[in-house]
């Protein structure tokens, strides 16, 4: 089942889906698995598995450190794909590859698409790959039946959103504010306006990410966005409070 129909199906039971995030190999693959078990129990719908990269320039401090530590511990692309295969076989949620374009570029776009597909991934998010550079990768993805997730942002002009919308498939990722991952976003009219503008330019479901960290944020997004994307807040909780803390975090978030 493709990403878009999966989202449609999950949305029959609830009005707002949740996408979570882990950085592969940080703190370790074993701990990643425990985090994912908690996410699955809580009913998370989608998970981004971030493949660590040495120059994660779109990420905030916590994910930067996670990328760095994971690589220092020796995490490889092969391990990430093997983990992805294990995760997608084991859990009901769907899995997306998240990372930087060089990871895909170095193995070759064709190999990249093939490996995401073989590992059970339904798509990928490469935040440093603009649509201008995506034609071949998007074509290969369409043939393979996986989705490239397009990012839409508050600084995108209407003309740009139209261009992004035309390329969007599966879902779009609306970046709630300027900046890198991890800082708090004030949920307000700006975010609603962004979602509205995204909807004008695409028919695929809209996920909202960057700074989403609480039940209040989710309540705010309900009825407007299709998916709430939670990243840094979960990792921060895991680091500070471990498994019990993360269980409480998701229980409260998705209550």
């Amino acid at each position: 089942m493709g990403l878009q129909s999966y989202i449609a199906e999950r949305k029959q039971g609830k009005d707002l889906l949740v996408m979570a995030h882990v950085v592969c190999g940080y703190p370790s693959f074993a701990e990643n698995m425990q985090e994912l078990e908690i996410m699955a129990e809580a009913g998370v719908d989608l998970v981004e598995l971030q493949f660590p990269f040495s120059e994660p320039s779109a990420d905030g401090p916590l994910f930067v450190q996670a990328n760095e530590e994971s690589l220092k511990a020796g995490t490889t692309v092969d391990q990430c794909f093997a983990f992805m295969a294990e995760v997608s076989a084991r859990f009901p949620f769907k899995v997306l590859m998240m990372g930087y374009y060089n990871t895909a570029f170095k193995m070759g776009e064709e190999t990249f698409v093939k490996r995401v597909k073989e590992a059970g991934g339904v798509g990928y998010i490469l935040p440093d790959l603009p649509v201008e550079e995506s034609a071949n990768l998007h074509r290969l993805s369409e043939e393979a039946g996986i989705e490239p997730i397009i990012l839409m942002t508050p600084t995108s002009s209407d003309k740009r959103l139209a261009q992004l919308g035309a390329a969007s498939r599966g879902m779009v990722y609306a970046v709630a504010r300027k900046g890198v991952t991890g800082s708090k976003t004030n949920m307000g009219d700006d975010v609603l306006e962004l979602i509205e503008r995204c909807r004008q330019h695409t028919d695929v479901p809209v996920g909202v990410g960057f700074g989403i960290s609480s039940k209040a944020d989710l309540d705010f997004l309900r009825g407007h966005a299709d998916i709430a994307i939670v990243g840094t807040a979960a990792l921060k909780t895991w680091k500070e409070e471990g498994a019990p803390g993360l269980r409480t975090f998701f229980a409260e978030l998705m209550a």
Partner: protein
Amino acid sequence: MDIFDFSDGREGYYGEYGGVFLPEILHATIEELLECFRECKADPTFWQEYVALLQSYSGRPTPISHLENLSRELGGAQIYVKREDLNHTGSHKVNNVMGQGLLCKRLGKRKVIAETGAGQHGFATATMAARFGFDCKIYMGAVDVARQRPNVFWMENLGAEVIAVQDGQKTLKDAVNECMRDWVTNMADTHYILGTACGPHPFPEMVSWFQSIIGLEAREQMLKQVGRLPDRVYACVGGGSNAMGIFQGFFDDESVELIGSEGGGHGVGSYMHSSRLAYDDASVGVAQGYKTYFLQNQEGNMNETHSVAAGLDYIGVNPIFAHLHDKGRVRFEAATDTEVKEALKLVMRTEGLIPALESTHGFVTAIKEAPTMGKDEIILINQSGRGDKDIFTIADALDDAKWKSFIEGKADQYRGERN
């Protein structure tokens, strides 16, 4: 040859290198910058204003010096040097920074950010910001902050805020990442003054354009002073801005051979160097906003780099050079740390010049090749920066015992004053 004519190819691409690989949030900012740059480039009054500013503020045109002693000692080609070291702030970096300062005014932005490795670019940016009245933040790897205190001292006293970057290797590439993170947050009122001809389009073109003043002057000076063009032009290559600057003056002169000299560090096979093109260790990749040769592993994660010259110690190379390397228009060699120290001593003693460690890499290759050339042949070297202001680094590199005991004495004195 106009490498910046994109009408037959893709905008911002040099062969298969270059491009724009940035988060979507910066798309509008890069478009705005590109548009402003195109206007500046098309407006002759902008270039006039730029040249006038550098003449009145930075001592341009910088002269060309004939190194008669060194030429005689080597017994081959006649060696000439373009003296970018005589610029205000001590290097060619000021050319780009003043140009981007003027452009920043046109953009209507009041804040500037910049990355810096050794501190030369940060120092030049802080100077420009003081002169233009901009708020200035300099991102510098924590390792570099620790080893380049004199430049940090000047940046802070010029009114800039210096932020020590604690991520990654805590050096230049990490400072670039941190600049990107600032920029994706504050782009509305902030311009990113990238220091070299790398990064996303239009930076390679824009920095090359500002630095082209070096080559424009040099070509004219050679014709006027020497009566003909040089046979070979040498320049060090880190990101590649000073080399692009001087080489552009000679791109159309097929008789002039252009040679870039990279940071050879501990040498071939050491994996402790910064040679992207001269050695075979680099491969094509995409990072920090552009596609070029990077020193990286098979999975695309960047390797550690090294050079005795912090300004050459960088993972990637100007995409224009990656292309000109493919086409054979520019030849790339490497100079090792050891060779650089020896060449520096030779140049100081024979000519009374103190090139920066970066610039000395260009001298190494020229000194190796000059004896194999005829006495009627001519070499031009770009001395991109001066070394005397980097006394701490050079004294370290030369392992000078008297200097060390002086510093120990100074340290004792400060300790005494504190107690």
